[in-house]
C-alpha cells in the first residue's frame, strides 16, 4: 500500500496532516521573522559588554552551517529510502540526519559556552539578549527535530516505518528542512553581514 492510499479523502484532495504542517511552518516564519527583526533592531545599540565584531567566530559557524546543510541532504535521502521500502538505508540516513543535528547542537553548545566565558550572557547587553534568544530558539527547534528523527529511527528498528508511513517521514523532513532554511538566514544576517558591517 502506498502512502497515497493511506491518506484519507479530503475535500481538497490534500492530506490534512501535511496541509496543517505547512500552516504550522507558515506560523514559524512569523516567529523567526520577529526574532530576527528584534535582533537587527537592537544590533549595535549595546552600551557595554562584547559586541558582534569581537565575539562571533565565522570559521566555526561556517562548519556548523555546512553540517546542517548536509543533514538536509541526508533527510531527503532517508525519505527516498523509506518511500522505496529500503529498511537498511532508511535507518542509515535517519541516523545520519539525527547525528548531524547532534553535531550542530554540539557546535552551538561550544559557541554558547565560549561566549559566556568571554563575558557575553543573556543579561549583559542587548546583543547578548537578542542573540541568545534567536539562536537559542533555533537550537531548541533543532533539538526537537533530533528527538523526532530518533523516534522515527526507533520506529524503523521496530519494523513500523514502511512505505505506508512515508508521509510521516516527509512531514518530519519538512520540519527539518525548515530549521535548515532558518539557519541559512541567521548565518547570513546575524553572522556574515553584521560581523562585516
Amino acid at each position, binding site marked *: 500500500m502506498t502512502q497515497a492510499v493511506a491518506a484519507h479523502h479530503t475535500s481538497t484532495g490534500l492530506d490534512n496532516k501535511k496541509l496543517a504542517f505547512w500552516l504550522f511552518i507558515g506560523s514559524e516564519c512569523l516567529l523567526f521573522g520577529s526574532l530576527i527583526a528584534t535582533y537587527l533592531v537592537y544590533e549595535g545599540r549595546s552600551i557595554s559588554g562584547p559586541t558582534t565584531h569581537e565575539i562571533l567566530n565565522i570559521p566555526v559557524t561556517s562548519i556548523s552551517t555546512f553540517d546542517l546543510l548536509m543533514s538536509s541532504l541526508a533527510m531527503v535521502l532517508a525519505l527516498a529510502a523509506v518511500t522505496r521500502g529500503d529498511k537498511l538505508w532508511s535507518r542509515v540516513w535517519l541516523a545520519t540526519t539525527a547525528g548531524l543535528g547532534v553535531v550542530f547542537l554540539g557546535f552551538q553548545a561550544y559557541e554558547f559556552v565560549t561566549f559566556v566565558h568571554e563575558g557575553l550572557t543573556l543579561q549583559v547587553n542587548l546583543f547578548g539578549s537578542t542573540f541568545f534568544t534567536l539562536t537559542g530558539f533555533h537550537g531548541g527547534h533543532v533539538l526537537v527535530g533530533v528527538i523526532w528523527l530518533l523516534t522515527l529511527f526507533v520506529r524503523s528498528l521496530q519494523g513500523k516505518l514502511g512505505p505506508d508511513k512515508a508521509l510521516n517521514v516527509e512531514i518530519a523532513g519538512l520540519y527539518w*528542512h525548515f530549521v535548515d532554511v532558518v539557519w541559512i538566514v541567521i548565518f547570513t544576517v546575524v553572522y556574515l553581514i553584521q560581523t562585516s558591517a
Partner: protein
Amino acid sequence: MTESPESTSQHAHPTAGAYLAVAGVLTVITLVEVGIFYVPAFQAILAPVLIILSATKFALVVMFYMHLRHDHPLFTGVFVLPLAIALAVVVALLLLFGVFG
C-alpha cells in the same frame, strides 16, 4: 487500488542525483559566501550579494528538499503568504527603528 491524482503524495520527488546536485550547489554557495566575507574588495557590496546568495540557498532547499516545486500549489501558498508577512514585519521594524537611516 487506484491512487487519486490529487493526492498529496502523488508529486514526483526528485531523484537522488538531483538531491546530490542541489547539495553540491548549496555547498558551493556557502563557500562563496564565506570566501567573499574575507575579501576586502567585496565589503562595499557584501550585504546585497550575501542576501542574494542566501535567498538562492533558501529557494533551493524549499523547492527541491521541501518539494514545493513539485507539490500542490496550495502548499506554496500557505508557506509564501506568512513568509511575505514576516518579511514585511522585518522591513517595517527596521524602518521604524531607523536601522536604514
